[in-house]
């Protein structure tokens, strides 16, 4: 996850669109470009055309679930489409060239001298689609307030509330945001397009006029380069270039996004020219790359695949010091080797050794080579993904594949014959998650115990996670994003989170509190290093691999498609150039 260092800057910092300096620059590039005879990307963009040309582009996607067109009702998954596809916009946007933010709906911004707030100057003349008028500060404020209202399902709601964020309109084009404590994640999470938490700007008048129920289904809103022409759930979405766009008109004038669930059919459609692009499962990437008119490239942020040793319910106070009741939780199982007795330091140390042994028993590189066909990398830190990962990486966090050392640790922990475990593998995020999960189970089983697996959907498993009933192993994958790392979010809100994979642990709370009070980027780096030291030492969550997103495309038609570095979604259609 890339983290914004804005709060670390002291004094007033002003930026304008003309001489804009990014809020922070990571030192490494995002995901590498993969190979083929006709790799696309990195091509200088030609001048955008007039919108009178009809340039059509089509791609396949496995799911076109309709999200919602009201901020407070946008689910995090499909909710991300609407800004990544360029229909709705955020204040800032990840650059396509560097892992840095650039303004989109604002012209400049200024940080308050105490580091607890920002003044945003909005771009004037930004028109909403559908004739809903010009975007003003009132729309900006309403969009943010609606998404963090009491009943909202918005994914950033926890962070917003923990920081006490208040947003106000100063005048027609000026907005003020104030927090009651520093946050190293707030700016990026809400004002960039890097995650599902991004604050998309909706027309207040549209929802006011239509009412929430009709606005939910209405696709006329947005300020981006594309308008929704059609959204047929489970079938097709059509985007058209917006004539009144406030920025450069997009080169591609029509985008057809087709739902094709079966990956093999997607590739057949790609090979026959029925579509121009689609995601490609890693084992089929070489086949696509070998086609004379097709090419592949990795894009965005790789998804995280990790193992939760569930049942660690040892938190007795929340981050703000509130006592946690009742204690213990239903899923608290001190007899599980990876959990231990919360009231016994000796038992907890044994459990730690078991978790470290489990981590050392996994041959991550082998999974990358044999299941992901090289399209990924081993993961050693929980849900910390590029570009932040490369910037903060320390060699001491490397976890060697060493089953012999793992067995010694298990013996020390009192499990010389290995551990017996049930591992649940949940599906729905990555085409190879079951294969990877089963490989992990085999590695754990090789330590001597009996490790069985059960495959089920994420939605089928989550209610038991919410109820804190689980104390087994859970292998899960998810897409990459750039908001606050989920572990930190969970620890902020535990035990009241609607997602609790058994990570109610005390130790990192002090470090997170410390992070929340920091005002310089150097200090933040130092504290974050300690946080990751702590995760690496204790293996509360066992990272496995980061799996790349692979895009296959018709290189006879597409000259370049430069996607911004901030997430793992397909999008940025305005950056497509055709031959």
């Amino acid at each position, binding site marked *: 996850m890339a983290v914004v260092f804005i709060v670390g800057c002291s004094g007033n910092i002003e930026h304008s669109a003309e001489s804009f300096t990014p809020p922070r620059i990571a030192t490494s590039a995002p995901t590498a470009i993969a190979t083929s005879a006709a790799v696309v990307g990195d091509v200088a963009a030609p001048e955008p055309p007039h919108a009178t040309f009809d340039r059509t582009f089509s791609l396949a996607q496995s799911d076109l679930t309709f999200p919602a067109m009201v901020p407070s009702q946008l689910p995090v998954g499909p909710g991300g489409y609407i800004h990544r596809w360029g229909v709705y916009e955020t204040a800032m946007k990840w650059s396509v060239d560097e892992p840095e933010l650039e303004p989109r709906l604002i012209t400049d911004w200024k940080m308050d001298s105490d580091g607890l707030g920002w003044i945003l100057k909005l771009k004037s003349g930004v028109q909403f689609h559908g004739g809903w008028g010009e975007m003003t500060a009132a729309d900006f404020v309403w969009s943010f307030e609606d998404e963090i209202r009491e009943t909202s399902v918005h994914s950033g709601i*926890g962070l917003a509330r923990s920081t006490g964020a208040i947003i106000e309109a100063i005048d027609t084009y000026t907005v003020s945001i104030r927090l009651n404590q520093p946050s190293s994640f707030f700016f990026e999470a809400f004002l960039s397009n890097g995650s599902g938490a991004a604050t998309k700007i909706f027309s207040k008048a549209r929802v006011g006029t239509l009412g929430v129920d009709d606005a939910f289904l209405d696709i006329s809103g947005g300020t981006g380069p594309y308008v929704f022409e059609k959204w047929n*759930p*489970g079938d097709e979405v059509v985007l058209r270039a917006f004539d009144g766009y406030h920025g450069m008109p997009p080169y591609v004038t029509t985008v057809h996004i087709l739902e094709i669930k079966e990956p093999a059919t997607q590739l057949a459609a790609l090979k026959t020219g029925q579509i121009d692009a689609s995601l490609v499962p890693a084992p089929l990437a070489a086949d696509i790359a070998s086609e004379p008119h097709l090419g592949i490239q990795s894009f965005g942020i790789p998804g995280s695949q990790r193992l939760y040793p569930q049942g660690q319910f040892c938190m007795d106070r929340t981050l703000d010091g509130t006592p946690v009741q009742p204690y213990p939780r239903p899923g608290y199982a001190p007899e599980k080797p990876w959990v231990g007795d919360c009231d016994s330091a000796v038992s907890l140390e044994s459990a730690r050794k078991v978790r470290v042994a489990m981590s050392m028993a996994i041959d991550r590189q082998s999974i990358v080579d044999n299941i992901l066909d090289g399209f990924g990398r081993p993961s050693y830190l929980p849900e910390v993904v590029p570009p932040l990962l490369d910037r903060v990486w320390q060699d001491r966090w490397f976890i060697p594949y060493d089953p012999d050392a793992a067995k010694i640790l298990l013996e020390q922990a009192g499990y010389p014959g290995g551990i017996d475990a049930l591992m649940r593998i949940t599906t729905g995020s990555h085409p190879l998650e079951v294969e990877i999960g089963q490989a992990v189970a085999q590695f754990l089983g090789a330590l001597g115990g009996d490790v069985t697996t059960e495959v089920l*959907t994420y939605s089928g498993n989550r209610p038991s996670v919410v109820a804190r009933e689980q104390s087994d192993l859970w292998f899960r994958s998810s897409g990459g994003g750039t908001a606050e790392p989920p572990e930190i979010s969970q620890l902020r809100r535990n035990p009241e989170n609607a997602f609790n994979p058994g990570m109610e642990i005390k130790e990192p709370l002090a470090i997170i509190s410390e992070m929340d009070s920091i005002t310089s980027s150097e200090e933040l780096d130092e504290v974050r290093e300690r946080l990751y030291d702590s995760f690496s030492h204790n293996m509360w969550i066992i990272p496995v691999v980061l799996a790349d997103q692979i895009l296959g495309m018709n290189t006879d038609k597409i000259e370049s498609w430069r996607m911004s570095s901030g997430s793992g979604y397909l999008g940025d259609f305005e950056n497509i150039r055709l031959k």
Partner: protein
Amino acid sequence: MTGALTLLGVTFLVFGLSRIQGDPRSILISDDASFDQWQEMGKQLGLDQPVYKQYQIYVVNLIQGELGTSTLQKKPVAGILLERGRNSALLAVTAFSLTILVGVPLGVLSAVKTGGIYDYAIRMFAVLGQALPSYWVGLLLILIFAVGLDWLPASRMSDWTSLVLPTLAIGWLGVSGQIRIIRSSMLDALDSEYVQLARAKGVAERTIIWKHVLRNAIVSPVTFASLTFASMLTGSIVVETVFAWPGLGLLSVNALNNSDYPILQGVILLAALIYVLFSFVTDVVYMMIDPRIRIQ
């Protein structure tokens, strides 16, 4: 009465299975939401009620003709079923036509030429059609006719050409079943005394086969055809998924993935209703083609 009881049983089964499968809040609510929000949305969706109470509400609404509203799409389920049902019906009609137009003549030919080269070839064709999974057949058809020969589109619903491959993928199974059942019934009938009598009286072989034998052998194939058409109408999950055909099968896959209970319940209930209806129609057709059944 039997049909009504069947439907009631289906509502119970569908309701229970959909609850086991997952929880729509897992899709709708982010990981970062609070436990209170999770509970609140449960109230909005009626999930806070005991399961028997949820079932009671569901059945009462059904009796009132209310299928509910899609959890994700926020549209009435009936409208969505109608829209997707049309697409499945189009595919079903073409596949069923193929089943009858190809299956019946080949079944008759196989029976008449029993033991010969035609019989072996047709039986091989039928065995393959029943043995090969339609998923694999679909992908093979795409590979040959779309990727290899570039004659037909690989997927999705567009003009008439897009109907060809999914029709073949679904229809081959129907054709195969029809061939085997007609052949078997015909062979029984061909051995009967009335056929021997007709031959002895010098009735033309064509008349014997098409007028006397086929008519007496048709009851079992009609049953099979009826159930085949019903299954085609309710949408093939596998074929619609492979060909990205926006019918009821694909709709149910999406509903399953997203735990959209109302849609899932609607699709399965519709399927049960179609089966019950076709069973009734089949009984009526029996009476039309065999007067002995009418008398009984």
